[in-house]
């Protein structure tokens, strides 16, 4: 379903090439790690 929405055979993907894809992966990984760390620290700080 989701894929069909994104336009038939020649999938209209947002991502242009592999380099871009790798860049997005890297950005997302860093940000997710950051968010989890901030959340955890905001609580754990008061348990130590």
């Amino acid at each position, binding site marked *: 379903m989701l894929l069909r929405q994104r336009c038939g055979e020649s999938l209209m993907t947002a991502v242009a090439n592999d380099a871009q894809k790798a860049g997005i992966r890297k950005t997302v990984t860093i940000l997710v790690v950051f968010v989890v760390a*901030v959340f955890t620290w905001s609580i754990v700080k008061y348990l130590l």
Partner: protein
Amino acid sequence: MTTTVADHHHDEVPKGITRWLFTTNHKDIGTLYLWFSFIMFLVGGAMSLVIRAELFQPGLQVVDPHFFNQMTTVHALIMVFGAVMPGFVGFANWMIPMMIGAPDMALPRLNNWSFWLLPPAALLLVISLFVPGGGPASGWTLYPPLTIQGGMGMDFTIFTVHILGMSSILGSINIIATILNMRAPGMTLMKMPLFVWTWLITAFLLLAAIPVLAGAVTMLLTDRHFGTAFFDPAGGGDPALFQHIFWFFGHPEVYILILPAFGVISQVIPTFSRKPLFGYTSMVFASAAIAFLSFIVWAHHMYTVGMPLSGELFFMYATMLIAIPTGVKIFNWLATMWRGSLTFETPMLFAVSVVCLFTMGGLTGLMMSITPADFQYHDTYYIVAHFHYTIFAGSVLSMFAGIYYWLPKWTGHMYDETLGKWHFWLTVIGFNVTFFPQHFLGLAGMPRRIPDYALQFTEFNQISTIGSLVMGFAQLILLVVVVKAIRGGKKASAEVWENPEGLEWSLPSPPPYHTFATAPEVR
């Protein structure tokens, strides 16, 4: 710049309800966010009218005090988390890909989920009003010990905050990933429109602030149900600790509400001044400076809690510093207008009113930053006046400016300028009639969040209530304007305005379902 439009094969727009449920298209998702925001705006607005109705006269007439407190709390939560934040995410979704020449957001399916988390969360908050014990009645700041004691409505609220926070975090990750990775060739960071810059900075603020709020409400939850005592003095906890954690989130949050607004204004003013934005680079650095400073001023919300003198002084001076980058922005907007060939279409009217009225809010903020003076202002209607001048006259009026500015682009039709002007004048007059007298009430000592008040406050309260009715019902005009523009009207050209700057204006109005499938060249 070249205009590239996806070939028509890619342009079949899906139909029916599934289009909206499963959409991964940034324009569809932007539309969903904007409508959600508008509905929340009306719901939260209705609650504020309950508040103003009760305050029309001293004594208790309309609602009982417990319900009144729920109204002040839920009104604020809905406006901040349901109306303003999602509203600007709607703008981000629509405009960022078109402004940087990207075909869509970097993570389109995550984008769908970020949006669809919102309606259930909002529903949960509204349902909380009807469970035994009622909804949250603590004020939007959720201070313990009251929030440790409340009924299950409080648990609903905590869960709501968790879900909304999750949505914001996912949205921010998407926005950052998009801006950093999806720009068209030649679109360097320092060529990005200011709206994109302010959103990039806002997204970082969200990522640093929201997890802290999530931590705070999680600790509230464990204090309530799992025997911890982070904030419960009975178990050795400290309620003031919650205030520190909440405001470590809360002050960056107010800049989360205002920075995208600054971005919108920085797009609108140059167009209607027919001059490029004055001081682009300083605007970028001022936004970054505001973002940094917003993390070291939180305790100006709690001067009266009893801090060491050195703490009070630190937070006082740090807070005053924020006035500098904010002032830089105001002067840049003024300099942009200076000797421009100005015209005052509805978007420009709203933008100019933001510059004037937001500055009022900034000045009262500066007064409140002075610790000894704030002992007088704290927890009075003065605060209520301050934050409505910043959030309503800053953020919401900027959104209105943005809606009128981009509505012809979004719908392909010009909006009704006469109705737009009516909407503008009734809103701005109603706003000032509502909130200006609240400065006087606050200075005279009327506390905030009370359903009843001493007799000498009556006149100003009556004026305020009358203003709020004007302002409230004027918003229905906006609904009419938007629906009319969606249904038809004068066709808008691609440029819509006179030589506006930005890639979005190189696309037809309305833009095809998929745009920039091939990246444009930016020189």
